[in-house]
């Protein structure tokens, strides 16, 4: 049944999160932008207390394979019980990003690394790496995929993992860049990073596996923290691995060379809508600010009149609102499919490419509509524009997501449509 009512859980999460976003995040937003890479202790500690009580394994569903141990019926029950977690998370992320997208990324949680562990990890791995997020001091998880010579072209990854049969350890060598919260995860806290590396370069994609590397593991070092255009509250690290040894059991998924890549890529089906959701929050903040300012200035937005009689301002605002809502509904569609256990690769890339671009344009318009004020740091509009732009880049650029959509539509392989 087609329905647009948020489930109670999601509505409640939205309401609770909004309080934090409005009361705490907005208060620190400008400070966090001015003090690049600094943790906002008040926010970090508060959020860690909240996330301690949450189940970090609840994320995922869409592309998750059924666990063999359980009967199909039990699996169905479990899904039903968990139903709504992807959607709920998207709604929550929209609220946090409405508060501040940089601080949202600073939230101490397993993040994308955690998503990878819960998507393909064994029960032992979940216990080992995720349980720590419900105790002690704030921790971060991170995901290291991009390299200086390989961004979206993940099959060209050169970081290697070689099995040392004598000690039964993987030995990792290579350099990773653009690791979100990388420094927070492995140097500032007792977190972990999930590293993509090849066990067999000749095997191409199939040789790529993901490995969990624990914080402060010898041989792993943060060599740089990037200075960025936006989301300055979040650290973006370069990490070098030199003969970095990790236990054999830290490999995620099947160690066989024939199957790896798809499992790794499947994580994106769950994470891309979350990036879209973050974009939505920033876009909404911008639109709300513009509309509230117009209201104060007595400038009406007249829905329902002849489109030919609309002022340029009215047209802009209406266009912004429609773009944002279209992106939001595509995002909700992708997440609700994941919650229902329906494969959502296509929809997940659709919403990501739509939201990433639409919100960047929406935030540009918002700055434009406020004239010189929009460009000033006295307001947050210019920051929102800088923050918004990342959503058209990370977790696959808008173009990479278009490529995914195009391949699905035409039924093409990556060889047929490069």
């Amino acid at each position, binding site marked *: 049944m*087609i*329905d647009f009512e948020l489930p109670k859980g999601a509505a409640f999460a939205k309401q609770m999160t909004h309080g934090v976003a409005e009361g705490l995040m907005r208060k620190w937003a400008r400070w966090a932008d001015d003090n690049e890479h600094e943790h906002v202790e008040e926010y970090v500690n508060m959020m860690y207390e909240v996330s301690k009580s949450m189940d970090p394994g609840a994320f995922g569903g869409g592309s998750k394979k059924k666990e063999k141990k359980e009967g199909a019926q039990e699996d169905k029950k479990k899904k039903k019980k968990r139903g709504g977690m992807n959607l709920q998370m998207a709604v929550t992320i929209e609220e946090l990003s409405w508060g501040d997208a940089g601080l949202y990324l600073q939230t101490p949680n397993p993040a994308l690394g955690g998503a990878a562990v819960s998507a393909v990890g064994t029960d032992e791995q979940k216990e080992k790496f995720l349980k720590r997020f419900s105790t002690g001091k704030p921790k971060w998880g991170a995901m290291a995929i991009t390299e200086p010579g390989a961004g979206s072209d993940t099959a060209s990854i050169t970081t290697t993992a070689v099995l040392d049969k004598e000690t039964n350890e993987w030995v990792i060598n290579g350099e990773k860049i653009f690791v979100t919260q990388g420094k927070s995860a492995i140097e500032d806290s007792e977190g972990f990073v999930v590293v993509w590396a090849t066990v067999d370069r000749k095997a191409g994609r199939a040789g790529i596996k993901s490995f969990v590397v624990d914080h402060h593991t010898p041989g792993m070092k943060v060599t740089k923290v990037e200075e960025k255009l936006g989301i300055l509250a979040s650290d973006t690290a370069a990490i070098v691995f030199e003969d970095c040894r990790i236990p054999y059991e830290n490999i995620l998924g099947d160690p066989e060379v024939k199957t790896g890549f798809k499992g790794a890529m499947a994580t994106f089906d769950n994470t891309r809508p979350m990036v879209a959701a973050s974009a939505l929050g920033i876009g909404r903040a911008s639109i709300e600010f513009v509309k509230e300012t117009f209201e104060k200035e007595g400038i009406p937005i007249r829905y329902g009149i002849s489109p030919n009689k609309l002022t340029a301002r009215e047209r802009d605002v*209406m266009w912004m609102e429609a773009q944002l*809502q279209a992106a939001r*509904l*595509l995002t909700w569609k992708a997440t609700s499919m994941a919650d229902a256990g329906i494969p959502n690769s296509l929809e997940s890339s*659709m919403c990501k490419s739509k939201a990433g671009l639409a919100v960047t344009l929406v935030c540009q318009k918002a700055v434009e509509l406020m004239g010189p004020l929009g460009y000033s740091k006295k307001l947050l509009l210019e920051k929102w524009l800088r923050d918004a732009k990342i959503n058209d880049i990370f977790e696959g650029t808008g173009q990479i997501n278009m490529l995914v959509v*195009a391949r699905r*539509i035409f039924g093409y392989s990556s060889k*047929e449509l490069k």
Partner: protein
Amino acid sequence: MISFEPSEEQRMIRDTALDFAAGELRPNSHECDEKGEIPEALLQSAWELGMVNACMPEEHGGVGMERSAITGALMCEELAYGDLSIAMGILTPALFAYPIMEFGTEEQKKAYLPRFSEASFQKATAAVVEPVMDFDLAELTCTAKKDGSSYVINGEKCFVPLGARADLFMVYAALDGPGYENVAGFIVEKGARGLTVSEPESNMGIKAMDTAELKLENVEVAADARLGGDAGCDFAKLMNYSRVALGSMAVGMARASFDYARDYAKEREAFGEPIAHRQAVAFMVAEMAIEVDAARCLLWEAAWMLDKDKDALRESYLAKMYADRMVMWVCDCGVQVLGGHGYIREHPVALWFRNARGFASFEGMATV
């Protein structure tokens, strides 16, 4: 719950509409457009499927299926996927019947609804659009004045679907000044004194469905010809239904153009391989898919709000505006993907391009 899955019943209705659209509408699309007419037999066979009449209430001789804006949106999309003009023609009687069903007085229901459960296609329509540059639903230039026990209507209308062959018109006019709340509907019968129905208009698109201009010069109707009697009707809501219907038709036609372009791009070879192997083409087609679905989601949300009886003015207005732009852009891309071949009328993408331009000017010409 957030869900984008139609119910079992809705899926059945959608499949029936798609079968009819693919089997009867699309094969006739080109010829109907070139000749500028929809054969009566086609309207009749759609009528027999119950596209309009299934939700007529039982006490007025109907089947009494529940009327739903979402179901209507699904039906509009599928029919327009076959052919926009014919789809609009098929659904035209609803423009007269549905407002009476929702806002009509008991007498009006008794007088007019039973004929919509009869076996033959009913020639009834509505007149909303006016031939002015900045046509505004909230400021109609067609006016009605109360004069004792009757109303006197003056003004001009255009784009009246199947106007030349209609027996019954629902004419909308401003009663006491501007604003949606001051618009009233009037039942005007063919041959009323002062009513002139033009020959079929000649427009850029939707050529298969004949539309007409109406001239109303001191057309006098009895007080009980006002839709809903003295209580009137909720014109804003009627126009929200219309936006959902027209927007969904835009989605259906855009989907047709997308499907055609996708298949063509896979088949057509240049430089030794299908043109779809090139990102310049593939990305255009991918974006067409995204935009069609984006508009569909907005329209479904507006339809859902109408079904829940929430105020959907903002949502349906924005959704239609989005769909108006989307359909023009997508159908433009459809022509572009085919290159020179797209400009030849033999391929339907040229017809969809012409039809697409109309949506931004269409108001009140379909309903759910």
